[in-house]
């Protein structure tokens, strides 16, 4: 094994050299070709089981699946490999298992929980296909495909995707730098280091048209150039993996599935701006991603892809992982810098911009994970290749995290310019459980909701803004008729006022007041007295004015976009707000205090369970005779509905 590893290292590095120092077409000899094919798993000698073991897979039980699989292989004395790969993106079908029999194409199976592992394993090893679990097979010309199994790319979830950033996710072993290299990984880095000046790298990235994938959408190459021009003895390059948006998990999945891609982008960026030290600021809530990164860094060092004199180019660069300690606002650049410096993550006024005066007062560039994951391919394939995809202002692809009330949840990557409707209804399979679509929330707490009538809008930084949403980092949460938009606005305001750093007044006090206003709408009549109703109207009247001031005066992006969730729901779902305000009604049945619970006397058996469970003693009744809910006492918690075994509690 050890010897193999050394051979691999030599061979892989030689290919890099050949390609970018000697500028030759890679001419693999037969032996080398065999090695590469092995690493690319075009040739396998024994069955290989791939289990999607990202955080989402593990939560769905992939760890148990792996255990069961290993047990089975061990018990049956079978020679087979088990490979833990990242997430291919189809979360709703997890745990995902792929099996590659020697010489045959890889087949993906869905919902392979531990209990079905032995049966499936037995079937596939005996060349039977457990059809109810099959999702599809990967197309690979080097391997023989199955006739009866459809190809993965025809699966509606994958059909409209353009997988550039995610191309390796779920396919290669994220713990193996060799597999990444065999797939021409780090060739972008080699090309940049050996054939381009930092300024040329900046130009290439600038001309590709790529814009920051973390939220604002600032042109990446332009940002780099600021830092390149800044004169300083030391510069820093930071990868922002502090994916704080609730409802977004793209960065986690990219790092878990293909950590070297991110690292490659980071090193190229460092070269482009002249940074000698880098940080990856990643959420402590992502232990697996941190583990994978640590391993990737170690491997990169052993390949002298990181550290001193990278790939013999004379360029030095070191990376440190900093675990974020849990603060949404640290996604903001100056707050993130303060956090790395060991301070409270409070933003500071800009200018000066970090590109001129950032970490420890030195020029600093901060890029998001997905942005960096694009860089390697841009350098290898050229800026024109990248710019050929997308719209006028938004080039390339964008990864989205689909979740909420949708049939297929997961991670998808689509070309810029695809209509949102296609993502929701084709890729995502539409709303789950035959419910009606209400809205899709894009951009997390800074973004907004897009209603049905605007679903044909395309994925593009500007067009999303035109409907009050924003690209954000790429969370896409689907709501159906059972989602209350007032409640959703309340949820986001609550989040923001808790996550506000508290420094500037409009954000700290303003979001608190906005939350209070929304809360007033969801409070029932019974908790109101005197002028409360009047005050409720009044505060709603002031809402737009307050929102405008928060947007105009807040110190950082978090505050400036804080009113978006409220303003966008108010804009598109005014009707629902009005029902809450005038009719004291929540049509989705979510706002507990606006609901009336009553007991169907025909169904109630008088078991007394609900009366005992009721936290406010609002349910009265004798044993074995129908119960009754005292409305004034009821707080609408819904416990009675949950506990009733006879379906006797109804909600109005």
């Amino acid at each position, binding site marked *: 094994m050890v010897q193999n590893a050394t051979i691999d290292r030599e061979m892989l590095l030689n290919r890099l050299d050949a390609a970018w120092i000697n500028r030759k077409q890679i001419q693999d000899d037969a032996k080398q070709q065999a090695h590469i094919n092995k690493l690319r798993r075009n040739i396998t000698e024994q069955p290989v089981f791939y289990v999607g073991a990202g*955080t*989402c897979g593990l*939560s769905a039980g992939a760890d148990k699946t792996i255990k069961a699989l290993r047990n089975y292989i061990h018990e049956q004395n079978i020679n087979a490999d088990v490979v833990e790969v990242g997430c291919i993106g189809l*979360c709703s079908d997890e745990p995902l298992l792929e099996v590659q029999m020697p010489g045959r194409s890889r087949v993906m199976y869905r919902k392979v929980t531990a209990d079905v592992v032995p049966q499936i394993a037995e079937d596939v090893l005996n060349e039977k296909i457990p059809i109810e679990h099959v999702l599809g097979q990967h197309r690979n010309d080097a391997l023989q495909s199955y006739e009866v199994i459809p190809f993965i790319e025809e699966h509606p979830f994958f059909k409209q995707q353009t997988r550039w950033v995610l191309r390796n996710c779920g396919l290669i072993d994220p713990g193996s730098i060799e597999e990444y290299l065999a797939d021409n990984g780090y060739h972008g880095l080699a090309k940049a280091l050996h054939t381009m000046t930092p300024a040329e790298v900046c130009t290439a990235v600038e001309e590709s048209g790529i814009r920051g994938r973390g939220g604002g959408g600032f042109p990446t190459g332009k940002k780099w150039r600021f830092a390149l021009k800044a004169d300083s003895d030391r510069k820093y390059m930071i990868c922002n993996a502090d994916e704080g948006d*609730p409802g977004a998990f793209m960065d986690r999945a990219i790092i878990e599935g293909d950590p070297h891609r991110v690292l490659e982008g980071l090193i190229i960026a460092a070269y482009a701006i002249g940074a000698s030290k880098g940080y990856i600021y990643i959420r402590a809530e992502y232990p697996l991603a941190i583990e994978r990164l640590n391993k990737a860094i170690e491997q990169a060092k052993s390949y002298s892809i990181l550290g001193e004199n990278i790939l013999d180019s004379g360029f030095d660069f070191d990376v440190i992982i900093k675990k974020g*300690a849990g603060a949404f606002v640290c996604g903001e650049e100056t707050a993130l810098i303060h956090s790395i410096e060991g301070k409270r993550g409070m933003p500071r006024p800009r200018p000066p911009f970090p590109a001129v005066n950032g970490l420890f007062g030195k020029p600093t560039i901060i890029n998001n994970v997905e942005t960096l994951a694009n860089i390697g391919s841009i350098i290898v394939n050229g800026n024109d290749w990248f710019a050929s995809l997308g719209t006028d202002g938004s080039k390339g692809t964008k990864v989205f995290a689909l979740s909420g009330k949708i049939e297929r949840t997961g991670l998808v990557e689509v070309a810029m310019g695809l209509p949102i409707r296609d993502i929701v209804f084709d890729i995502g399979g539409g709303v789950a459980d035959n419910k009606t679509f209400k809205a899709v*929330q894009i951009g997390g707490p800074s973004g907004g909701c897009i209603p049905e009538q605007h679903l044909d809008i395309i994925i593009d930084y500007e067009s999303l803004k035109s409907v009050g949403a924003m690209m954000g980092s790429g969370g896409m*949460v689907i709501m159906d008729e059972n989602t209350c938009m007032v409640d959703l606005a309340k949820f986001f305001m609550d*989040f923001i006022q808790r996550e506000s750093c508290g420094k500037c007044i409009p954000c700290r006090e303003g979001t608190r007041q906005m939350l209070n206003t929304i809360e007033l709408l969801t409070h029932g009549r019974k908790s109101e007295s005197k002028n409360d109703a009047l005050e409720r109207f009044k505060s709603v009247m002031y809402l737009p004015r307050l929102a405008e001031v928060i947007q105009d005066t807040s110190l950082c992006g978090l505050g400036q976009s804080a009113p978006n969730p409220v303003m966008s729901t108010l804009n598109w779902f005014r009707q629902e707000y009005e029902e809450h305000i005038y009719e004291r009604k929540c049509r989705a049945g979510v706002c507990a205090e606006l609901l009336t619970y009553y007991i169907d006397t025909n169904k109630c058996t008088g078991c007394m369970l609900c009366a005992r469970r009721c936290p406010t003693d609002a349910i009265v009744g004798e044993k074995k005779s129908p119960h009754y809910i005292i409305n004034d006492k009821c707080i609408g918690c819904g416990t009675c509905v949950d506990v009733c075994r006879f379906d006797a509690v109804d909600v109005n």
Partner: protein
Amino acid sequence: MKQENRIGYIMEKFPDAQRENLIPILQEIQEKEGYLSRQTVADIGRYLNLPASKIYGVATFYNQFRFKPVGKYHIQVCRGTACHVKGSAAVLNTLQQELKIQPGQTTRDGLFSLEVLACIGACGLAPVIAVNGEFYAGVQTGQVRKILKEYRNQEK
């Protein structure tokens, strides 16, 4: 002397520590000791030459840090958007009712503690809770009691 013993492992892992090491140090301590005690905060202050008020200010800024020990079973409830849309508020509510504690608190018997997380990042499987790091996906209110019972039974 005593102080060196208490945070000796920190001084070993972070020699010549600077302010930029503060958060990693606090994370390390919490990982090892479960929470940040007054004493350790004071010790770290002396080690880093930082006033305790600054350390406390930093520690209270971030969600991660606690100043009280957690329960034997630490329950984390994801309150991300996807989880919210799929009913995590009700799950949290049930947990609060069942355990009779608020997020950030520990039950009197020291068995359970409750924490709200902004987002675990497993949105595709919402709503998600984690008990001592073990995930439960697609949790509905009805399941909550069952899960708690499992852990309670382990104690008997």
